[in-house]
């Protein structure tokens, strides 16, 4: 069957089970979009800025088992994707990005809207392609999807010259890929697994550190079984939040820079760290030289390059986390760690995760109420900043893989478009975008997309009038000089209305819950602008350069009582 390049793209996408494309048009892809319209099985979501397309594809991929797909035209369309691609790369999100390119004959001539996007994205993609003839399109797309979703997932970019879309060629979708340089190891080495089991059986103060790899491998059940079998306390990274049910007795919350005091104490005092699907990011380890000083380290990860990159490892196991945990479970001896767990519970008591009573709206309190109203069942998508940390700390995640956030790149503006992608992928679930007033303003134009697509998405803005996380650093480390951090935001409720959706403003604590309930009851997108305590800081905090055991705790303010946290 002879097809043109554009048809081959569409047919190949169908072969890969794609049904949603997030994108934006332009000269080099008009022909492709014209063809997409003839494929009703391919839903096209028109974003308002290409960055939004990449973040939406990212959110979509994290929330489903699928590869996210985004599409942009050449030149500025392609460069606008860059932040979103980098974000997906840092957080190991499977994505295929398509960009149009100038016709082959014009490449290298600085033609109108020509940009070397494969060159630009070289260090932020798992792989990328410039397609040189229609006859290699099908094979390229097959490879791209395979690379994006296997091994350690990541974004792949395919740059297609305009004239390739109209070139006719025989279409045949390959059944398998031929990539001699790409063979991810999925089975953990049995002798390494035995060594790990031995270390676990010998350990007196073990702690599991679970990362996003648990979500990627869908290893939640295996993690729980392992933890229960050997009575292992579980701490997570930021992106590992919701890898382990937080109400579980063995859950000791998130560790790292804004992690729970008891989580960081646990890692610091451990004699064995069992790191699973995480990469010892500096935001988790704090000062590397004093990280877990008494511990041996077992590191389980699919990416061999992560082993020993930041932290010395005693037992590396390269493989798919789910498979490795299953195998490990089989050779593991049941164990108790009563004294150790008692110690951890004592720390839990000493450094509780609490919210104080306050006359104004505290963002932490909003998180608790969001958790209470949604029964801890919502998919939470965040921007980047203080609100992100509060969302990670104070919402109680008991359902697997329900916290979606930009970890590695820390991309302000991720929240709204990513939440949009999440909602497209999981239309039947409650999706809350928890955003900061700064982050929200970076991509708020996507409200138009949300309204156009009739996405029933809920948005909570923690409006503190500041680029709060930066202000917090200025407060603590720059003599309270608030340079370039105070924000005069627009009226977000009016913004919502201008875009054709509903919204309300909340200024008093007693209005928090009713507002959330109203948002939930509303059939359609809804925005709540929470005017929160402007100079609230996120605690605990491990100051930059300090060991994770040296975290700062919230200074207790006088005449304020502390209340318990949320209970889903």
């Amino acid at each position, binding site marked *: 069957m002879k097809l043109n390049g554009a048809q081959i793209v569409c047919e190949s996408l169908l072969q890969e089970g794609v049904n949603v494309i997030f994108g934006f048009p332009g000269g080099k892809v008009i022909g492709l979009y014209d063809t997409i319209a003839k494929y009703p099985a391919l839903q096209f979501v028109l974003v308002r800025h290409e960055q939004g397309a990449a973040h939406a594809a990212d959110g979509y991929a994290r929330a489903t088992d699928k590869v996210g797909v985004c599409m942009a035209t050449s030149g500025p369309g392609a460069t606008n994707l860059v932040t979103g691609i980098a974000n997906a790369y840092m957080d190991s999100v499977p994505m295929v990005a398509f960009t149009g390119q100038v016709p082959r004959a014009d490449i290298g001539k600085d033609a109108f809207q020509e940009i070397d996007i494969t060159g630009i994205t*070289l260090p932020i993609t798992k*792989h990328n392609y*410039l397609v040189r003839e229609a006859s290699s399109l099908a094979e390229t797309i097959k490879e791209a999807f395979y690379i994006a979703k296997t091994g350690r997932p990541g974004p792949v970019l395919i740059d297609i010259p305009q004239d390739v879309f109209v070139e006719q060629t025989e279409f045949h979708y390959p059944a398998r890929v031929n990539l*001699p*340089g*790409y063979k991810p190891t999925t089975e953990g080495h049995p002798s390494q697994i035995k060594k790990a089991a031995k270390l676990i059986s010998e350990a007196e103060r073990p702690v599991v550190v679970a990362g996003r790899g648990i979500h990627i491998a869908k290893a939640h059940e295996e993690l729980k079984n392992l933890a229960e079998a050997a009575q292992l306390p579980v701490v997570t990274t930021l992106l590992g939040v919701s890898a382990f049910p937080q109400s579980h007795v063995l859950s000791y919350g998130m560790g790292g820079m804004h992690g729970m005091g008891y989580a960081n104490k646990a890692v610091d005092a451990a004699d064995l760290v069992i790191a699973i699907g995480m990469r010892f990011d500096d935001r988790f380890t704090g000062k590397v030289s004093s990280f877990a000083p008494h511990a041996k380290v077992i590191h389980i990860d699919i990416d061999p*390059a992560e082993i020993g990159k930041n932290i010395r490892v005693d037992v590396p196991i390269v493989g798919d986390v789910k498979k490795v945990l299953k195998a490990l479970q089989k050779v593991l001896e049941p164990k108790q760690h009563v004294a150790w767990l008692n110690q951890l519970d004592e720390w839990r008591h000493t450094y509780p995760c609490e919210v104080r009573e306050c006359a104004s709206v505290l963002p932490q309190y909003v998180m608790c109420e969001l958790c209470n109203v949604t029964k801890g069942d919502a998919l939470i998508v965040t921007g980047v900043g203080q609100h992100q940390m509060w969302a990670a700390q104070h919402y109680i995640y008991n359902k697997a893989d329900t916290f979606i956030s930009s970890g590695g790149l820390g991309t302000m503006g991720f929240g709204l478009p990513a939440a949009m992608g999440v909602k497209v992928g999981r239309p039947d679930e409650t999706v809350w975008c928890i955003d900061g007033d700064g982050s929200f303003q970076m991509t708020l134009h996507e409200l138009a997309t949300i309204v156009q697509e009739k996405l029933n998405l809920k948005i909570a803005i923690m409006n503190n009038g500041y680029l709060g996380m930066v202000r917090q650093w200025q407060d603590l480390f720059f003599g309270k000089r608030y340079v370039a951090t105070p924000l005069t935001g627009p009226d977000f409720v009016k913004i919502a209305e201008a875009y054709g959706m509903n919204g309300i403003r909340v200024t008093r604590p007693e209005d928090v819950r009713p507002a959330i309930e109203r948002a939930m009851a509303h059939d359609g997108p809804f925005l709540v602008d929470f005017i929160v305590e402007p100079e609230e800081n996120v605690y605990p905090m491990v100051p930059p350069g300090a060991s994770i055991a040296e975290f700062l705790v919230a200074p207790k303010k006088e005449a304020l009582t502390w209340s318990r946290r949320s209970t889903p």
Partner: protein
Amino acid sequence: MVATQHTLVALVQDKPGVLNRVASIFRRRGFNIDSIAVGHSELPNISRMTIVVNGTSTMVEQARKQLAKAINVVKVVDITEENITARELALVKVKATSDTRSDILEIADIFRANIVDVSMESLTIETTGDEDKVESMIKLLQGFGVMEIARAGKIAMVRGPLGPMPVAKARNEFRKKAD
């Protein structure tokens, strides 16, 4: 830990941009590549790169793992610790007068180098050998006035029939693909 010189050998798919990909991995990690030599290997559509970099063993190992991850890189090995044959090629153009010509020829002779071009004012000498040999010859010629030096990067191979290269498995796969 101290930085030392490492020699890496990589088999890479012969695809556009592959040299750029490899170089980019080193650039990103702050390595200065001392030399890189690329050419066809014994396998169809597979090029062989010899890369010489300076770095601590952990840094080089990290870069090697990142290289191994690149989709177009079929195999990459650090052969620094192996028993290897390593060769460099250099062309050296030296000022030569009737007074100095015979001295220069003598030096070339000692190093078993070839004279590849002669003019009234210059001699061009071609030499092959390990880095030390090339360096010492250049050093000796310096006194006569070196006008130009062109050096090809180091190429290297592990001695004996067995070694980390070539990759039997990759070879088979490529045979299959070529069929």
